[in-house]
């Protein structure tokens, strides 16, 4: 729950941000953790949840997505991947030990270049959304994005909105999440974006 996952779509991109702290109880084990996995050239998945499950599930999905790309010499679209992930998570839900993983899946369609973002929780509820968050970040960031997000925003504006969200989280979350890793998905692929995590935000 204290892990932060954020996603924003715009005119021709999808931004995914994840907190850098790897936590175990009250202890921070690592301050530069990357909670994202690239599924193919233009689809990225961010994950949070129970310690072992997250990476295990994400890399299982990553391996299957890559296997599909190698066998068929085509990548699955973000929508197809989202439904594949949902299917795997849904069948796990009614197994003896379900995966406890929340996901954001962002991508840009390889053919139409349409950006998309999918919100998935550990129950395998799937929703296509223009912007999304997981955990406590939902309560702080969704209202901000309700007010400031437009469907046709540029990447620069998207980064501004992420800064807005990060500031609010620094101001109101009682724990230090060690800043955000930000990645942008565009038609040219996925790249990590520079993000100022050292900015000090004063409380109110």
């Amino acid at each position: 729950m204290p892990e932060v996952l954020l996603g924003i779509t715009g005119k021709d991109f999808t931004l995914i941000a994840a907190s850098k702290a790897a936590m175990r109880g009250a202890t921070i084990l690592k301050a530069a953790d990357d909670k994202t996995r690239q599924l193919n050239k233009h689809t990225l998945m961010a994950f949070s949840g129970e310690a072992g499950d997250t990476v295990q599930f994400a890399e299982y999905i990553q391996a299957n997505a890559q296997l599909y790309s190698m066998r068929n010499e085509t990548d699955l679209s973000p929508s197809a991947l989202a439904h594949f992930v949902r299917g795997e998570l849904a069948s796990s839900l009614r197994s003896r030990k379900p995966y406890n993983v929340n996901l954001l899946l962002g991508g840009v369609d390889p053919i139409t270049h349409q950006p998309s973002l999918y919100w998935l929780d550990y129950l395998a509820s799937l929703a296509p959304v223009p912007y999304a968050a997981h955990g406590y970040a939902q309560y702080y960031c969704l209202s901000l994005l309700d007010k400031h997000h437009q469907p046709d925003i540029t990447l620069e504006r998207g980064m501004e909105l992420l800064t807005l969200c990060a500031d609010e989280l620094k101001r109101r979350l009682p724990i230090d999440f060690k800043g955000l890793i930000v990645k942008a998905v565009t038609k040219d692929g996925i790249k990590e974006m520079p993000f100022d995590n050292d900015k000090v935000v004063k409380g109110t």
Partner: protein
Amino acid sequence: MPSPFSINGGACVAMVGKDCVAIACDLRLGLQALTVSNNFPKVFQYGDNVFLGLTGLATDVSTVSDLFRYKVNMYRLREERHIAPRTFANLVSSSLYERRFGPYFVSPVVAGLDPKTGAPFICGFDSIGCIDFAQDFIVSGTATDQLFGMCESLWEPGLGPDELFETISQALLNAVDRDALSGWGAHVYIIEKDKVTKRLLKGRQD
């Protein structure tokens, strides 16, 4: 509060008219009080004039709607014809009862017109497949109490397609406005002999 039927919220209603039926749902997907999405339709089409509304746990809404898409496609390939609403209702019932001791947390509603006679058909189910055949209307979801009230007062026999649209829309919109867990827009389908009209209602966005 942690009943699987009311975690995500949502409402659905079906009504009989004169030579037509209507089915409508809201668009909210939430986690308790937090709204996550306002674009989560709960009515699905299976063939020319067979419709299924699903409320309850969102993951099961998706799972069950996907499952029936598969089953109906297989039926169509085997039988080389579309499935009839009454047949589909029995398929829903038996598929749900298969999971008798570990049910899908959904309350389905079926609406359609008989392909031979053109007679309106609606029915509802509980989560383990007990069918509720009704001659007037069927409601399901977190706004059932409100929907029953609205339908009891607005519905009358022999409504034409346009009157039926007005009736079902007012019933749904006013019911979900009194339920914190549903609303945020609606989809309304009016099904006539050889015409299906889908309308998107904006509704209150608060």
